[in-house]
């Protein structure tokens, strides 16, 4: 059964929700299970809120996309539905590409994305008479992790780039022990992979055509990375801050060799002293109106209070 839908292997939420069972979790099933739970909560609250009155007209919002965002989107949807029982929001994962494709095809109202839409995708959407509108809903720091026994405390972006392109092969050359470096990455279709390649390995230079070294181990899940980092003193990996467990050591990152070396946190992402962070988006089909607009306003306002609890960074000045 786990082999049937390979798409879900790229899910980032799995290690927290399915954990030890597989390390190859199923965002969709998780999402659905949570959905079911969310709906149940929504229903109970609806009865309470209406106090026996006839239910108001139901509004339903379809929300699909990024596996990075799926846990956060679910948390928002659950909270919002308990506050507004007449609205039902269904959240599914599947990846940024999946969400954007569904938005283009007009089957959903909100797409979650951990990257911006490409020019090609926007052109496709406009051909279908849909103008996508982008909203930044949260920030995400990408943490660089290593084994707790590794003495290396900090790395510069340049060193990270040289490590991941295979130019530096020994921990000794960045101030560590005489050990080989084992590179860990997420699979190539993950938005995090693309971000890390473009912003860290290529240093944001568009003309740079560097790639991950072929020796890079592409792990199918966050659990794959954390399990290897936990056991192997040679390993280095990266992942969203919300997915880093306490048995991995987070490396401080600096823009230049002079420093400062900064650890990722909500504070350092917001004041932009931590160099590897990215915005997370929700796209709507056209300017949002009605229930979708109300929901997005809530997400970017009051909804920011629950962002930190799910392991992401709330928008500036909005966090609780």
């Amino acid at each position: 059964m786990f082999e049937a839908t390979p798409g879900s292997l790229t899910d980032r939420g799995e290690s927290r929700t399915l954990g030890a069972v597989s390390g190859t979790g199923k965002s969709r099933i998780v999402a659905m299970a949570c959905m079911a739970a969310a709906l149940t909560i929504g229903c109970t609250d609806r009865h309470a809120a209406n106090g026996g009155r006839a239910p108001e007209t139901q509004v339903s919002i379809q929300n699909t996309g990024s596996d990075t965002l799926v846990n956060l989107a679910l948390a928002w949807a659950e909270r919002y539905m308990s506050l507004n029982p007449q609205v039902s929001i269904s959240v599914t994962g599947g990846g940024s590409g999946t969400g954007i494709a569904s938005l283009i095809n007009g089957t959903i109202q909100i797409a979650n994305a951990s990257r911006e839409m490409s020019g090609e995708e926007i052109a496709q959407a406009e051909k279908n008479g849909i103008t996508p509108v982008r909203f930044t809903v949260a920030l995400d720091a990408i943490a660089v992790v290593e084994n707790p026994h590794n003495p290396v405390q900090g790395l510069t972006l340049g060193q990270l780039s040289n490590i991941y392109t295979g130019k530096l092969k020994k921990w000794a050359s960045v101030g560590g022990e005489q050990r080989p470096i084992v590179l860990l990455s997420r699979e190539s279709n993950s938005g995090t992979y693309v971000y890390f390649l473009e912003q860290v390995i290529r240093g944001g230079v568009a003309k740079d055509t560097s790639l991950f070294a072929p020796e890079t181990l592409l792990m199918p899940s966050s659990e794959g990375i954390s399990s290897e980092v936990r056991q192997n003193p040679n390993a280095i990996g990266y992942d969203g801050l919300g997915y880093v467990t306490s048995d991995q050591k987070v490396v401080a990152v600096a823009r230049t060799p002079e420093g400062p070396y900064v650890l990722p946190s909500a504070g350092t992402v917001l004041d932009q002293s931590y160099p590897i962070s990215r915005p997370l988006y929700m796209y709507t089909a056209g300017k949002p109106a009605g229930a979708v607009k109300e929901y997005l306003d809530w997400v970017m306002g009051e909804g920011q209070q629950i962002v930190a609890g799910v392991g992401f960074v709330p928008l500036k000045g909005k966090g609780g």
Partner: protein
Amino acid sequence: MKRRRHFSEFAVETLIRILGFSTIAFVLLIFLFLLREGLPVFFEVPPGTLFSAHWYPTYGIFGTLPLILGSILVTLVSIVIALPLGVATAVFVREVAPAWAREILKPIIEVLAGIPSVVLGFFGMTFVAPLVRQVLGAPTGLTAFTGALVLAYMALPTVISVAEDALDSVPKSYRDAGLAMGATRWQTIWRVVVPAARSGILTAVMLGMGRAIGETMAVMMVTGNAGVLPTSLASLFQPVRTMTATIAAEMGEVARGSTHYHALFGIGIILFVLTFLINLAAASAIFQKKRRGGLR
């Protein structure tokens, strides 16, 4: 009464016929689908690139060679491990073990076949991989060898039960003749019974290989999935990326109709052809066995 029975017989016969033909039709349709989705890649990507040494699908580099060699390396090594273990177990179960031990062993071996591959993969990732790293002193435990170990374990039940069947079909008179000639029990088993069953054992190996090369989940979890070209014996103790793991890992978010999409189906075709050849070899071994009554 008689007519009704005729009718029901006709109905059942037709039903069985339809089911039989539809199985063939489904296989054909799947193959056609695979061809339709996969063949374009052989035109979109020049053959020189398609069989080059680097696989960076997100950036338009589709070199399938490391994936093909990765799959072959892991499969071959797994069979090299599984064959002696499997045949020895089959010999023990069929020839040596007392009846009560056989009664216990056979169901246990069948249970072994029922362990889901994710479970084995998880076991491999958390237990076998660190062991391989510590014992061999490799930089990481996620290597082709770890994958081969897990695959060998998965292929074992197939190898054991098919090899046991082969031993079972060796006539009792052979054993009696061997013992009557003054051969010891060991000599009879090793020089008479096993050689007589060798085409069946070959089938066991082929079926085990077929199981191993198509395995996805466990392999993806323990081989490290690094697209490095395995060039020497040392590659065995380095990470590799197999064809199945590549398809499983990348199919999820690939855009329908893109070159990457066609390339994944192209890998599917290559895998299909390889598995087909292995099965063909297994089938011809069975055929040989029938013709020669299990003996040369």
